[in-house]
């Protein structure tokens, strides 16, 4: 195993010193920008979720001129808003033995030893500042009668370190960041560009110096110059068409940066969440997550007999298979997300799935209701039960819930160093959009933590260091790099519109989703992945010959917006399959059926695959090449996970 990256650009720039001192060391030696000079610099922030919103607000407070862009009609709507469960921090308020070290350890282990130790430790250190910051902003976290903050346990952790705001933690945190951002909009330090989509990155003299955007209302293509670009555009789960992501979540901004030279790391690492409301038909446009806290009191089962189509109450106890309790006696229904998801798929694939589509398993609360009463269950899960009933029309107090795994989060993303800078100088990537700190699997309540850590507390230091260490000759928006990049963006739009075929974007996207879910989903095989690559290749070819986009480019036109995004999703899907193919091991969310233990558990190969796979674009028609950033574990020794 090589200890040096296979590409000089893959220098992680981890500061020296003991792991607990690295971040402090960096902060004490980083170069600073004089307050009077900050206002001479313009920073572009793309995306206004937790990462983008918090970064835009913090940088504007420091004095930078910020231009913030989002595709929604307001900075308050980014998909961070939908996160339900909570946010982790190592506060140890419950006095149950938590510490920065433990949060660091759990995150590295939970990520199945595919994350960078230095980054994860910093994340755990910053986690406490996030809670302080959010409380000061007025985020209404749950409180005890003492008036102090409440905590709950979450996703396999042995301590209660999750702060939450009912089932709407993401919403409340995002509104905190959004309000901080609006304050700076009011102060004139942030210029907000809502309903704008980033189409390309402008690189001048080797540095990211601007972006090309499309005004989604007028269709106008605009150029925006800056001294650095922060990409906070979220994950790419919608490559599967059906996911818990919002409809507008997409990979386009990140993908166009990839094509300008930013490496894309670990694209195959996706998280499939075990408790979502199942697909009910082909018309389905998105999937809704039900918080995994439900597994605390619900029992997962399927009928013992294949093809048993009786309604659940007609299936006697003896003919039910509580397969998680049977296979994992010590963790039972509380096994980690990836294990729970894979097992549900196994049952459905084996013909024991329930419901009209057979693509679901039961999550049954009958025992808990008998034991605790309707009242307690409703206190714990009332809003979730209500949401379930709203969507399915079934009452979970009477009928077992039907659940099935769904794509939820993508751990992969643009490669960044310790400074959150990509392989293009001046292009920083924050939040879910980077390949981040979660390795091959993200723990519950850690996504919010990472987005806010990046935006509030990391980027203000690392960006300042970059600005102070570099010179920024003025680039004009009318200069050649802008003109050329804009011409390319226009060319792509014209090309899409000129196809004038007969299949709609939705139709292609749905087909792509089927391929991705079937072959690059929960269980992956060499043959399946190769099949996916071939199929996507064929689809891509057809796409450019048979796509139909109604309407014109100079108005609001969602079909056109989606056409660009789906084109990028197809290319990304292919790269995901290639990445999954090269990773001949199972780890976290990536399960290669060829690589499992005798009991059917994921089998990691630390000898050969303890690296981040950073893919490098090589031009149209040429396969991207893979570079390796080796991962070394000085502080946490990798071990095999077991939940038996």
């Amino acid at each position: 195993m090589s200890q040096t990256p296979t590409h000089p650009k893959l220098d992680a720039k981890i500061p020296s010193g003991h792991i607990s001192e690295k971040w402090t060391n960096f902060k004490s030696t980083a170069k600073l920008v004089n307050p009077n000079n900050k206002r001479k610099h313009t920073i572009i922030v793309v995306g206004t979720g937790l990462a983008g919103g918090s970064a835009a607000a913090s940088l504007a407070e420091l004095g930078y001129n910020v231009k913030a862009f989002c595709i929604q009609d307001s900075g308050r709507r980014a998909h961070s808003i939908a996160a339900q469960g909570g946010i982790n921090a190592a506060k140890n308020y419950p006095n149950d033995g938590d510490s920065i070290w433990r949060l660091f350890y759990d995150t590295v282990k939970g990520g199945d030893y595919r994350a960078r130790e230095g980054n994860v430790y910093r994340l755990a250190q910053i986690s406490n500042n996030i809670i302080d910051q959010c409380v000061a902003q007025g985020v209404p976290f749950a409180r005890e009668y003492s008036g102090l903050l409440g905590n709950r346990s979450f996703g396999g952790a042995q301590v209660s370190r999750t702060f939450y705001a009912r089932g709407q933690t993401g919403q409340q945190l995002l509104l905190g960041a959004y309000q901080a951002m609006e304050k700076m909009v009011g102060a004139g330090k942030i210029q907000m560009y809502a309903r704008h989509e980033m189409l390309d990155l402008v690189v001048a003299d080797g540095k990211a110096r601007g972006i090309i955007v499309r005004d989604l209302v007028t269709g106008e293509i605009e150029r925006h110059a800056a001294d650095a670009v922060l990409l906070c555009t979220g994950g790419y789960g919608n490559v599967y068409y059906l996911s818990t992501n919002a409809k507008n979540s997409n990979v386009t901004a990140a993908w166009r940066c990839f094509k300008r030279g930013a490496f894309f790391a670990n694209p195959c690492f996706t998280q499939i969440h075990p408790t979502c409301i199942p697909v009910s038909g082909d018309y389905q446009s998105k999937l809704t997550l039900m918080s995994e806290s439900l597994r605390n009191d619900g029992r997962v089962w399927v009928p013992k007999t294949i093809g048993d189509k009786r309604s659940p109450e007609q299936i006697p106890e003896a003919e039910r298979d509580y397969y998680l309790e049977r296979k994992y006696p010590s963790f039972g229904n509380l096994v980690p997300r990836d294990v729970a998801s894979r097992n549900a798929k196994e049952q459905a694939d084996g013909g024991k799935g329930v419901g009209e589509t057979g693509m679901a398993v039961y999550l049954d609360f009958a025992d808990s209701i008998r034991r605790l009463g309707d009242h307690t269950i409703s206190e714990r899960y009332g809003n979730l039960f209500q949401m379930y009933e709203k969507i399915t029309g079934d009452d979970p107090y009477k009928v077992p819930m039907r659940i099935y795994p769904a794509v939820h989060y993508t751990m992969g993303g643009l490669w960044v160093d310790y400074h959150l800078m990509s392989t293009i100088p001046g292009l920083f990537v924050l939040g879910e959009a980077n390949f981040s700190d979660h390795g091959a699997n993200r723990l519950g309540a850690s996504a919010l933590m990472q987005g806010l850590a990046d935006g509030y507390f990391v980027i203000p230091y690392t960006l300042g260091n970059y600005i102070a260490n570099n010179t920024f000759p003025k680039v004009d928006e009318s200069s050649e790099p802008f003109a050329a990049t804009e011409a390319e963006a226009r060319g792509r739009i014209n090309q899409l519109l000129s196809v004038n075929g007969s299949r709609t974007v939705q139709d292609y996207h749905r087909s792509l989703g089927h391929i991705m879910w079937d072959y690059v989903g929960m269980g992956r095989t060499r043959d399946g992945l190769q099949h996916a690559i071939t199929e996507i290749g064929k689809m891509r070819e057809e796409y450019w010959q048979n796509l139909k986009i109604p309407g014109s480019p100079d108005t609001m036109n969602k079909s056109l917006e989606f056409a660009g995004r789906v084109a990028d999703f197809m290319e990304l899907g292919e790269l995901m399959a290639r990445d999954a193919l090269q990773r001949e091991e199972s780890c976290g969310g990536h399960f290669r059926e060829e690589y499992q233990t005798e009991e059917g558990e994921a089998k990691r190969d630390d000898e050969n695959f303890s690296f981040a796979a950073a893919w490098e674009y090589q031009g149209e028609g040429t396969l991207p090449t893979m570079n390796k950033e080796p991962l070394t574990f000085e502080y946490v020794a990798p071990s095999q996970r077991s939940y038996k």
Partner: protein
Amino acid sequence: MSDTLMTIHLKVWRQDAPTQPGKFVQYTVPGVNPHMSFLEMFDLLNEQLSVKGDIPVEFDNDCREGICGSCSMVINGMPHGPQRGTAACQLHMRHFKDGDHIVVEPWRAAAFPMIRDLVVDRSSLDRIIAAGGYISTNTGAAPDANSLPVDKDDSDRAFDYAACIGCGACVAACPNASASLFTAAKVGHLALLPQGAPERKRRVINMVEQMEKEGFGDCSNHGECEAACPKEISISAIAMMRREYVKAVVGS
């Protein structure tokens, strides 16, 4: 649970641009599954239109799980449709019958200028927040989170108000097109928390002023906003905003 497909007759507002006159257009959508959400029924309509080469209906939507606040349709005269506590994205077709006629219109308010079809510009709500809907805490300046205990009841009530998703249904439902519930929800959320106290007076005065500047109407206590609110925020927020306002003007 019947899965018989339905046929739905829609009368939808179509408008190419703010400068052009709009009109209602009738569509018949066959093959509507009762499990579909209202927006999925629109997806189906748009697929049918696209295949025919017609221009699909534009409508704002994003999370489709009732939290982002993007969706904005007045369905049979009611913002987000007939089901209480529900955004249009979580309204399901099982609440309609085969052969139903449904009228779909955009949010209508002078402060929400038309963009296209069912899409309107709600940035006026952002500007109300920018006028004071925040607590000024620069990043890094916060004391320990538990250094300031907050009464649990206050905190819970603050949450009830903070649950606002900023969709603007309150404005759309109000006979006066008032944004009082939206503004009051934020005023109430921040006024109930000790962290919000230093800016309390300035906040309510500036936000009320901005609401007026944006051209929203006055509150006449119709209470239709509370009925239309997908988060069922109580108009007690508006009463609270008025008290805050009086305190700010008189008691300074």
